[in-house]
């Protein structure tokens, strides 16, 4: 994930969290703990989503320990605070690998940090389930990284699916000119073409853009059925602002990142109504073990899990499963086992390409309805029916 999702988060800078991962009942797991290392942005502006991720790891470790640990040994999480700084993360992974000599590694948050530590982790020949969505690292460049989050080009596949199911034919694409949205836009265009739709407008804008009026007017001149933004939060809000103020109509408005954030609804109020977004996870999902995950997470941390928590939780569970099957901590064997793993997680079906790219996870479509996010697609996961077409502003 390249997005930086933040809520105000006062996170205590706890660096060593071993205590949280100790077996509760004492009896089941024995022997020296298996130490799982990571750096997490526990403080600073990017800490809010990262702390969700850490809590996901913590819950996974606690559950594994309750069930007897891995290879009969308890799991202990060794987490340091990288403060969102890539060079700090590099130093911390150095420390984890060479001085702490942890047994397993899991991923930091977010994509910049994953990319920063990738060469180091690869040199050390240690497997790392990674939470970076762009696909380049997993195409042979870093063979020990496996992708444990939905790959970028697939982020909006279900949105196209929903649009196609309504018979919509034309798409206008507004793309922030940075790496994640550009890779995403390519995925959207490919999927739309595959579904028999045509991209009638496509334009990139600088990430500093705040006024979208002319861009939105230009897109509207092609009379697209669907206007899709490969965006983050601020630009998604800017595009909706411009569309409403210029009274630009389309049958459907959808954005990659933006509507998933609560601030989207708060900041746009009535203008957010009917807008679609994507998410990688939703607490209502009917996926394997999700009900228990949501209940346990809420009980342990006093808030519902978000998608960062869910993908992190799933990634440690999948890694532990591979270790258990291999029967040892041999990193090459674990890697081979992971590449063959196909399993159902709280996020969805986990499966990898031969080079470690995530091919199982997809995303889910949500829509703002009456001031709330509802999951509307795919249909079997829906919490409310889809409301289409988009009404006049």
């Amino acid at each position, binding site marked *: 994930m390249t997005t*930086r999702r933040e809520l105000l988060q006062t996170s205590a800078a706890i660096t060593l969290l071993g205590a949280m991962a100790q077996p509760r009942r004492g009896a089941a797991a024995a022997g020296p703990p298996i130490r799982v290392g990571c750096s997490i942005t526990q403080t600073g502006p*990017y800490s809010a989503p990262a702390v969700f991720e850490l809590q996901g790891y913590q819950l996974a470790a606690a559950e594994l320990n309750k069930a007897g640990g891995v290879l009969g040994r308890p799991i202990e999480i060794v987490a340091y605070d990288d403060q969102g700084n890539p060079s700090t993360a590099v130093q911390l992974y150095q420390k984890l690998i060479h001085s702490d000599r942890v047994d397993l590694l899991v991923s930091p948050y977010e994509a910049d940090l994953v990319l920063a530590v990738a060469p180091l982790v690869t040199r050390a020949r240690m497997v790392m389930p990674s939470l970076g969505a762009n696909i380049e690292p997993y195409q042979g460049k870093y063979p020990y990284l496996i992708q444990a989050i939905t790959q970028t080009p697939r982020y909006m596949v279900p949105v196209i699916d929903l649009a196609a199911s309504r018979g919509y034919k034309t798409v206008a694409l507004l793309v922030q000119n940075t790496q994640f949205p550009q890779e995403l836009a390519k995925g959207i265009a490919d999927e739309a073409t595959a579904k028999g739709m045509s991209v009638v407008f496509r334009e*990139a804008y600088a990430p500093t*853009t705040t*006024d979208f*009026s*002319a861009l939105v007017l230009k897109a509207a001149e092609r009379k697209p059925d669907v206007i899709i933004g490969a965006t983050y939060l*601020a630009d998604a809000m800017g595009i909706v*602002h411009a569309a409403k103020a210029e009274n630009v109509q389309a049958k459907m408005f959808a954005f990659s990142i933006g509507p998933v954030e609560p601030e989207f609804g708060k900041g*746009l109020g009535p203008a957010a109504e009917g807008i679609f977004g994507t998410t990688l996870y939703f607490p209502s999902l009917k996926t394997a073990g999700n009900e228990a995950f949501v209940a346990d997470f809420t009980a342990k941390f006093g808030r519902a899990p978000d998608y960062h928590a869910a993908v992190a939780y799933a990634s440690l569970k999948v890694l532990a499963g591979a270790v258990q099957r291999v029967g040892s901590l041999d990193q090459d064997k674990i890697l081979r086992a992971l590449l063959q793993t196909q399993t159902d997680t709280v996020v969805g079906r986990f499966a990898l390409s031969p080079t470690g790219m995530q091919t199982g996870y997809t995303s889910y479509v949500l829509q703002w309805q009456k001031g709330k996010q509802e999951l509307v697609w795919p249909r079997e996961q829906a919490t409310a029916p889809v409301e289409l077409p988009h009404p006049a502003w």
Partner: protein
Amino acid sequence: MATFATLVVLGLLWGGVYLLMAEGLNLIYGVMKVVNLAHGDFIVLGGLLALTLFGRYGLSPVVAFPLAAALLFVIGAAVQGGVLERILLAKPEGELRTLLATFGLSYVVANTSFLIWGSQFQSIPFLQSAFAVGPIAVPQGLLACSLLAAALAVAVHAWLRHTAVGRAVRATAQSALGAAACGLNVRRLRIVTFALGAAMAGGAGALVIALVPFQTSSGGDLTVQAFTLIALGGLGSYLGAWLAAELLGITEVMAQYYLGSDAAAAVIYLVFIAVLVFRPQGLLGRTMRI
């Protein structure tokens, strides 16, 4: 034709928004020759205050505007009186020292805001619709900001020209030493000016957050944008800043439409560089300076 007219209207209105966000900086620079690098952070602080007033008490940005302005007035007065007045301006390094002090201040303001509001982008749903004038849609939010920017510019201009305090401020701008020799309390005048400049930033933020989502780290970009604008207009010139704002607004909207959005971001700075090369004194040079 309707499209072209719409683009012109949008450009002019966005120009007004840019002017609104630059007026406080222009006043402070005009009088004290100090570039307040915390200017953008003041704007963001005003905006986030409006956000809280809206979210917690349901108060519209119209009510938040004077409150944010008042709060920033107090903060501005405290900063000038407590910090900047104590920095020796006399030597050439003086300007650098105040620059560094306001740079530090911008970190203090931004990080304090972060502790209170977090780092997510925030906005307020306010005046989102448009008036239809024939085939042209005139967005209400943009119009309100533009009108307010114009009103503020006129008010500041009148204050500086036609009131005793305003004249004293201009006297201080021309020669602090001369003004002091005539018995003016130069220190107090500078405090009032800085506080007013900060208040204008805070008030602007309370409205602009409804148009452009802010996060606590947005301040730096806003400072650069405002500084570009007043440099383009001829530092300290009010008419110049207004012209520059409209020029930027129109250029941006037209470039976005005809050249593409990616190019638009560059075009503005190309215009800026051209002005610096061919007209380093700004569009209007020394005319209409404070």
